[in-house]
């Protein structure tokens, strides 16, 4: 039996490299009827903001070719209810918890990080930088290396928890973004978040989504995600990278590990098959077994080029 456990970061040992992607796994408990969520590497929660957020009005999701657009608008229950209601449930279920969070401005991010610091039962923070900075005219933190680094630095100062920065793929140079946030104190990276897309309702002559544009996820984006993970792990081999984007099967996950991801997150696939993440854990195990691979870590990054 291949040993699937690994250290994502020094001292942070995971049972296996399969995580769930933020915004696609609720707060975890929704999946308990389908499998034991303690069996996953970790649960990354729905993006959390300081205060509850109602999200976008109008149509929020729409299918595209082998993908989907979402414009949920980061609806979430807010920090307090999360700590009171959801975190205890996750801990009770025995899950490792990574908290994904975001803000409207640097100060919000920093405050959240400070308030999550030291909370028991949180393994790491994942900072979603694909948000507009409301205080700076709506320019995205996630597409400007300077803004991103400043943000990550501010958060870094507020927390002793391991910090994972989730990168936006809507950039010219993903490696530049990666370098910037690592230099600012990010311990690890997850990529990719959704590609910015749009869909049109021809009959109504309107955008399908209430929000006009939305985030593209699912198998359609896997080639872009694989490429970016490859570029970043190649340029920054010492930085742990979590691969995300269009992972549906164990084979998909293995491809990300092969190009250098230390772990993966399963997103959209969990909507279609609630057991997807668990099946991917099993599938990785049996594939590596059949290769005679002793440890999953022996497989990671072994792409021949």
């Amino acid at each position: 039996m291949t040993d699937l456990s690994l250290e994502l970061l020094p001292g942070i040992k995971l049972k296996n490299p399969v995580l769930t992607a933020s915004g696609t796994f609720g707060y975890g408990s929704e999946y308990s009827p389908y499998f034991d969520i303690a069996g996953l590497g970790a649960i990354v929660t729905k993006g959390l903001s300081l205060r509850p957020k109602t999200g976008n009005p109008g149509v929020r999701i729409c299918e595209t070719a082998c993908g989907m657009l979402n414009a949920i608008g980061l609806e979430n229950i807010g920090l307090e209810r999360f700590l009171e209601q959801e975190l205890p449930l996750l801990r009770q279920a025995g899950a490792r918890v990574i908290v994904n969070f975001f803000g409207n401005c640097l100060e919000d991010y920093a405050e959240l990080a400070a308030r999550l610091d030291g909370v028991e039962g949180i393994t790491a923070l994942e900072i979603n930088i694909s948000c507009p900075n409301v205080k700076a005219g709506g320019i995205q933190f996630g597409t400007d290396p300077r803004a991103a680094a400043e943000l990550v630095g501010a958060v870094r100062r507020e927390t002793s928890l391991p910090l994972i920065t989730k990168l936006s793929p809507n950039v010219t140079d993903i490696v530049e973004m990666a370098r910037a946030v690592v230099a600012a104190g990010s311990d690890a990276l997850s990529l990719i978040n959704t590609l910015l897309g749009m869909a049109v309702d021809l009959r109504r002559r309107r955008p399908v989504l209430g929000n006009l544009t939305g985030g593209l996820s699912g198998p359609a984006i896997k080639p872009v995600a694989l490429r970016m993970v490859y570029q970043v792990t190649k340029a920054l081999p010492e930085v742990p990278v979590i691969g995300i984007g269009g992972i549906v099967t164990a084979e998909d996950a293995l491809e990300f590990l092969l190009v250098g991801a230390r772990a993966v997150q399963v997103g959209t696939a969990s909507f279609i098959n609630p057991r997807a993440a668990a099946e991917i854990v099993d599938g990785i195990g049996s594939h590596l077994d059949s290769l005679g691979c002793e440890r999953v870590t022996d497989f990671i990054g072994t792409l021949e080029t």
Partner: protein
Amino acid sequence: MYLFEAEIIEKWQLAADIFRLRLRAGEEFIAAGRPGRFVMLAPVGGLYDPLLRRPFGIVRCGDGWFEVVIKAVGKGSRNLVGLPAGAGITVHGPLGNGWPQDESGEQPLILVAGGIGIAAIAPVIFARRAESETFLLYGAATKDELVLLDEFTTHDGRGPQIEVITDDGSCGRRGLVTELLLEKLEEYPGARVFACGPEPMLKGVQKVLRERDIEGWEGWLSLENRMACGFGVCLGCVQKTGSEPETKTSKVCTEGPVFAAGEVIFDD
């Protein structure tokens, strides 16, 4: 909640683009499939187009099977109805809350169906055939789109009283189903109302009920918002609910699809 692969036992074409599929399922699934609940369906096969499951009401259950009635409107539904008998469909469900259960069975019940909304209404009819005073008000664009009508009445004549209305007058009166509802409510002011159909129809039903002005309204609407997951994790299906200024967003898949008519706040 179950997640399983089901064989299409049989398939019937009910109208040009409406099909009934009978799917194999276990006892526990069927026991949980009460009227108004739904399933998320996708063909077996591992192809990613269509990608997401699609929601359909559980229309009828039997021994080792249940049925869905699917109108082919886009690629997801077209793909499902194109599968031959014998093919596999993966089923996730039963999901959602379902219609409120009528403990006594004594209050008159008015069922309002618009178009393929009949799929959500039909299971109530099948469950209530033994009881009295059920009225089905059924509207459709045209005669050919009225489906299942011959199954609502048992061989010995039990079943709802049915009134039909079509946009083009090809069957029943010409007009909208809300007209029938207004009339029926005059006759049975204390009746409960269940409605499913296109959003404009549901808005019309809501308006009629609002004007009736009975405490609690005694009306329920089954919504059909777009869904990505069907079990409460994507937040894609939310509907504004409550009453101003106390509004919130509710997940149609888990808090619905059936809502008290007074609770739903439609966009204008």
